[in-house]
C-alpha cells in the first residue's frame, strides 16, 4: 500500500489504465476537430461547403455541356428541356454547366474576398482597439474614410490601380470588406482588453502580439465569424458587381453573380435563371453560416455537450 497515496482513489481501484484512458478521451474531446465532428450544425454546413467546393473543382467532369457554347436557337429553355438540366440562358448556353463552372469563381471570390478582408480588417481592428488613443483614431478615421467610398467607386479606383483578374477581384472585395471587419473587431477589443485575464497576461509579461492573438482575438472571434459568414453572400454579389464594372472576370466566364445579374433582365421570360443561381448562392451562404455557427460553438468552451 506504499504507492497508494500517489494515486487517486479510483486509480487505486480501477487501475491507472482506466484513468489514463479517461484523460485521453478528454483530450480527444477537447480537440477542435473532434468537437466539430460532433457538432451537427457544423457538419451540415461543412457538407454543404465541401459539396460546393467539389462541384467547383470537378466542374469539367460534372458539367454536361460546354458552359460557354452559344446556341442561339435554344435560348431560355426551361428546366430539363432538351437535355439541359437547368435549361438554358439568353444565349442558349447550358445553365447547369454554367452554374457548375460558376461555382469556381463565386467560391473563390467569396472565400478569398472574405478572408482577405477579414485578415486585414482583424489586424487593423486589433491594433486600433488594443493600442487605443492616437493609433485608434488614425486607423479608424481611415476606415471611416474608406467606408465613405461607395463600393462602386472603390472598385473603379482599384481597377485602375490593379487592373482586372481574379486575384484583383479577391483583393477588391477584400479591401472593400476591411473597414467593417476592422470596426467589428476593434469594438470587441475595447471591451475584452480590460478583462481581468488580460491583466493577468500582462503581469506574466505576455507580449502584445501574443496578447492579441492568443487572448484577445479568441475572445472576440464570435462576431467575427458571424460577420464573415454573412459576408459570403455579399462577396458573391460583389464579384458580379465588379465584373459588371469591368473589374474582374469577363464574359463568357460564368459566376453565380453574373448568372443572377443576367437573370435579372429576363425575370419574366426565364425566371429560372435568377432563381437557380439565387438558390445556389443561398445554399452556399447557408452552408458557410451553419459551419460558422458550429465553429463558434466549438471554440466556445462553455458550449460543450
Amino acid at each position, binding site marked *: 500500500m506504499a504507492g497508494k497515496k500517489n494515486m487517486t482513489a479510483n486509480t487505486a481501484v480501477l487501475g491507472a489504465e482506466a484513468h489514463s484512458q479517461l484523460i485521453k478521451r478528454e483530450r480527444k474531446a477537447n480537440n477542435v476537430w473532434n468537437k466539430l465532428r460532433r457538432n451537427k*450544425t457544423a457538419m451540415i454546413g461543412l457538407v454543404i461547403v465541401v459539396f460546393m467546393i467539389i462541384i467547383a473543382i470537378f466542374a469539367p467532369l460534372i458539367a454536361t455541356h460546354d458552359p460557354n457554347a452559344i446556341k442561339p436557337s435554344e435560348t431560355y429553355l426551361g428546366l430539363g428541356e432538351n437535355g439541359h438540366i437547368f435549361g438554358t440562358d439568353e444565349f442558349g448556353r447550358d445553365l447547369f454547366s454554367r452554374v457548375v463552372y460558376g461555382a469556381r469563381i463565386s467560391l473563390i471570390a467569396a472565400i478569398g474576398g472574405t478572408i482577405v478582408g477579414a485578415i486585414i480588417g482583424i489586424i487593423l481592428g486589433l491594433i486600433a482597439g*488594443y*493600442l*487605443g*488613443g492616437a*493609433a*485608434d483614431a488614425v486607423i*479608424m*478615421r481611415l476606415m*471611416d*474614410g474608406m*467606408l*465613405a*467610398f*461607395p*463600393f*462602386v*467607386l472603390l472598385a*473603379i*479606383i482599384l*481597377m*485602375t490601380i490593379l487592373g482586372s483578374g481574379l486575384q484583383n477581384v479577391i483583393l477588391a472585395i477584400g479591401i472593400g470588406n476591411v473597414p*467593417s471587419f476592422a*470596426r*467589428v473587431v476593434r*469594438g*470587441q477589443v*475595447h*471591451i475584452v*482588453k*480590460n478583462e481581468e485575464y*488580460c*491583466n493577468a497576461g*500582462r503581469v506574466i509579461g505576455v507580449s*502584445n502580439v501574443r496578447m492579441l492573438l492568443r487572448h484577445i482575438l479568441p475572445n472576440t472571434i*464570435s*462576431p467575427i*465569424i*458571424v*460577420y464573415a459568414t*454573412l459576408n459570403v*453572400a*455579399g462577396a*458573391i*454579389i460583389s464579384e458580379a458587381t465588379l465584373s459588371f464594372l469591368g473589374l474582374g472576370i469577363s464574359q463568357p466566364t460564368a459566376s453565380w453573380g453574373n448568372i443572377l445579374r443576367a437573370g*435579372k433582365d429576363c*425575370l419574366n421570360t426565364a425566371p429560372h435563371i*435568377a432563381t437557380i443561381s*439565387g438558390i445556389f*448562392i*443561398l445554399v452556399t*451562404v*447557408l452552408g458557410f*453560416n*451553419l459551419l460558422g*455557427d458550429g465553429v*463558434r460553438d466549438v471554440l*466556445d468552451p*462553455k*458550449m460543450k455537450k
Partner: protein
Amino acid sequence: MIPGNPALTMLGPQAPKESVEQLEEELGLNKSKGEQYVIYLKQILKGDFGRSYSYNKTVVELIKERIPNTLVITLTSLLIALVLGMIVGIVSAVKQYSILDYIFMVLALIGVSMPIFWLGLMLVLVFSVNLGWLPAMGMGSMANGVWDVISHMILPCFCLSTIPMATFARITRSSMLEVVNNDAVKALRARGLREGVVIWKHALKNALPPIVTVLGLQLASAFTGAILTESIFSWPGMGTLIVSAIDNRDYALIQGVVLFTAVVFVVINLIVDIVYTIINPKVSYESGKGGN
C-alpha cells in the same frame, strides 16, 4: 484618380472634339492633377465644395436636398431591421438549436442572399401591380396626407431592411449566446428575476456592443448602400446622387459626397464609441494597452 474623362463622359457619344476640349478647359481639367487637387483643397478650406457640373448645382445644395430623403428611408428601415433583427436574434439565442432557431436562421440568410433587385421587383409586382395596394415607386408628399408618404416608404424600406435585419439577427444571436449563460446572468436568475428581464434587459445590454458596432456600420453603409433600392424605387437620395456622380465623373460631386459621408461616418462612429462607454462602462479609449 478615376479613369474616364469627365468632359467626354458628360457630353455623350456625339460630342465633337472641340466641345470636349472646351469643356475640359472650363472644368479645369487641362491643369495637372496636382494643381487641380490644390485648387480643390483651397476651395474646401473656404467651405466651398464646388459645383456639380452634371447637376448644375452646388454640391452643398445637392447634398442638403438629398439628405432628408435618404435619412427618412434608411433610418426607418434600419430601425425596423434593428428591432426585428434583435428580437429574432434573441429568440434564436435563447432557443438555440430549436426549430425556431433554424427557421429564423434560414429566413435571415434568405434575407442576406436575396438580391435586392429581385426582391424589389417581386414586391412591386405583388403589392403594386397585382394587388394595387402600394405605390410602385417615387416619394410621397405630405401634401397628399401622411398615408401617401408612408405608403411610398413601405416597399423601399422593406427592401432596404432585409440585409441589415439579417445581420442584426445573426450578430445578436451570437453575441447573446456569449452572455446568456455567464455567471452574472446566472446570478440574476438566482435573484428570481423574471426570465424576460434577465434576457431582454441584462443579457441584452451585455450583448449590445457588437450590435452597436454593426448598427454603426449599417447606418454608414445605408448612406451609399441604398443605391440599388433607390434606383428601383426612383427614390431621389444620396445613392442616386453618388451613382450619377460616378457615372458622370462629376469630381466635385464625388469628392463632396465622399467627404460628406466620411464626416457622417466619423460622427456616427464617435457616437458609437460614446454608446459603448455608456453600455459598458469599463471600456476605455485611453491610449495604452488596457489596464487602468
